[in-house]
């Protein structure tokens, strides 16, 4: 009788195990480590450090210009793999309302397209381009992770971008000169 009861309880627990459901996103959310500008933030397989931020209305990539109705936000990040070769498969900006703006796919981004590999102990700096509305450009957060598709229950780095005023955003959105996107490079 005890054995049957034990099996029954085990079956109930196994069936009750919350694999799916409404709260699956929250339950299986990634492990986010937050940081500020100038300090390395771990994303488990690599460490990221925000170097600089700039904006533009017209973005030049490989001799081609890409114009936007909002504003281009280009973040320069230094990435160093930790234990094994890795990639940046996920990059996004988060506004104050937790809306997510993924990396632009209007062109190939060599730094965060999921193809560039980072070797352990070799820091690499590069720029990542985001296209966002002008009203949210004043306050944003950068999130980086290695997995390309599934970031659940994995490490993720979150770095708060420096606050900018509306005048600066308007200036970025109205400047006529294109901003040339820099290529990734190994830094010492």
């Amino acid at each position: 009788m005890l054995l049957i009861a034990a099996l029954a309880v085990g079956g109930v627990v196994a069936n009750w195990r919350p694999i799916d459901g409404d709260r699956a996103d929250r339950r299986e959310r990634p492990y986010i480590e937050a940081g500020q500008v100038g300090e390395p933030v771990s994303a488990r397989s690599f460490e990221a450090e925000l170097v600089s931020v700039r904006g533009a209305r017209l973005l030049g990539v490989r001799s081609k210009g890409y114009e936007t109705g909002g504003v281009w936000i280009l973040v320069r990040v230094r990435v160093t793999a930790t234990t094994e070769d890795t990639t940046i498969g996920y990059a996004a900006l988060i506004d104050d309302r937790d809306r997510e703006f993924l990396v632009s796919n209007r062109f190939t981004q060599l730094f965060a397209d999921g193809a560039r590999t980072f070797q352990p102990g070799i820091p690499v700096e590069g720029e990542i381009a985001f296209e966002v509305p002008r009203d949210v450009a004043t306050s944003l957060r950068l999130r980086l992770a290695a997995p390309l598709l599934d970031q659940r229950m994995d490490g993720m780095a979150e770095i708060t971008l420096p606050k900018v005023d509306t005048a600066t955003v308007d200036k970025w959105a109205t400047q006529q000169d294109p901003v040339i996107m820099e290529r990734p490079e190994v830094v010492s």
Partner: protein
Amino acid sequence: MTQPPPPSPWAPPESAWSPRQEEPQQQPESDTAVFSAVEPDTAAIQVDPSQAETAAHPHVADRTSRSRMPQADEPPPGERPAPPLGPKPPVMLNPLPRPPRSQSDGYSNAGPHTASPSHAAPTPRSHAAPAPPAHTSPGPRSHAAPEPTEHIGPARYNGPPPPAESPPGWDATQEVASPWGAPQASPPATAPGRAFHGQPPTTPPPPTAPPPTALPPPTTPQAAPSQLSPGQPPRSPAPQPFAHPPAFAGPPAPPAQVQGYQAPAGQMPAPQMPAPQMPAQPMLGQLPGFPPAPPGHAPPPGYPPMPGQTPPPGTGRATTTKGWWRRNLWGLIALLPVLALALGPSVKDALDTYNRVDAHEAVLPGADGWVSYADVRWRLVGFEPATDLKTSDDQPFQPPANTKVWRATITVDAGDKWATDKYVVAGCNLGLEDSEGRRFTANPTELSGSAAGRRVATCSPEDDDTPTPWEVEIYFVLPESAQPAAVRILRATELPRYARFPVS
């Protein structure tokens, strides 16, 4: 007609007022009247004013109250004689109910705990006629004997003798059959005039039961209001407190306590009789207060020794633990496959996941440097720093700062399979592990711009027509401070096994 009892030495002198001389003429006993059977007793009580205290007994009072029921030939209240002067009759305390009885029930003066009429023996009433021979036996309650308690005793049992199993000191005459069924015992303390036929008790009477003479005089000599008509004088003369006649020199009734019996109000509580001693039964020493188990008795296997027993040497808690395992042996054995069924799937899933995502079983080369892995033989023939890298236009390539490029040369022998399967080495992954355990990929992005950087790291030859064995050359970029440890060759279909070539 009821004849007056013979003169009793306890009777008052003739000059004393006695309603008994008048009552018999006024209340002829009727055989059909239920309560007339007790009327003579009442008269007997009223004969001797000195026994008025005894009339305070509930049984007697009950009879007295019943005797006051108006009779057919009873003169009207106005014709009754004037009540005598003196103390009024005692109050009747808590008269017990008594079912109506017939005259032929065999009981001369039945109390509430008398036998039912069906059990009655056709014994003539003691006061209805001259005492029969059976009643002339020398007994304290016999009418023939000048016994002062003859007329005041609440009950006299004329039925079958009491059982012989009565405990010592118990008046057998008190155990009489109840008219309601199970036999009950009459309260002995309430029958001061009850006859005592047993042996004199050895237990002295308790101090809480004083002799009848010590009872206080009645404080309310008025009869019960419900038994008297308004304005009707009491029929009984005023009983006078009297001293108990000394004729009965026998010991008082032995104290007895009948279970479940509660003395009526106004009576002295019955003395407590000690409970009979039951023979002690051996309880194997399991309960406190019982004798220990006999020496030859042993507890069942697995149980601790009983109190009072010395455990065998070498036993104790270990014996108890061992007994528990022994008792649950089959249950524990049955639990093993259940645990395997419960945990098996989960463990298998975890192992499969662990083996699917990571290579942790290294296949090392033999003495000749060859490694058999994934149906192919492998051999690391060279590992050295690459300082002569060229660009696509045959210019010296400068690797990134603070990095160092390493070149590894591997010989692949696919054997006879190469002729039939050109994908025998497809999907292999080449890597390098440094002394810190960090793993690097071959031909990384840091070699972009060099001729080596344009070539995909693969184990296959540049041309499928290349005969086996062939050689592949791969490059690694490590931090300048890193120390290479081993070259790794991995095929996803061979996980978790991988070929490992130490280089240090």
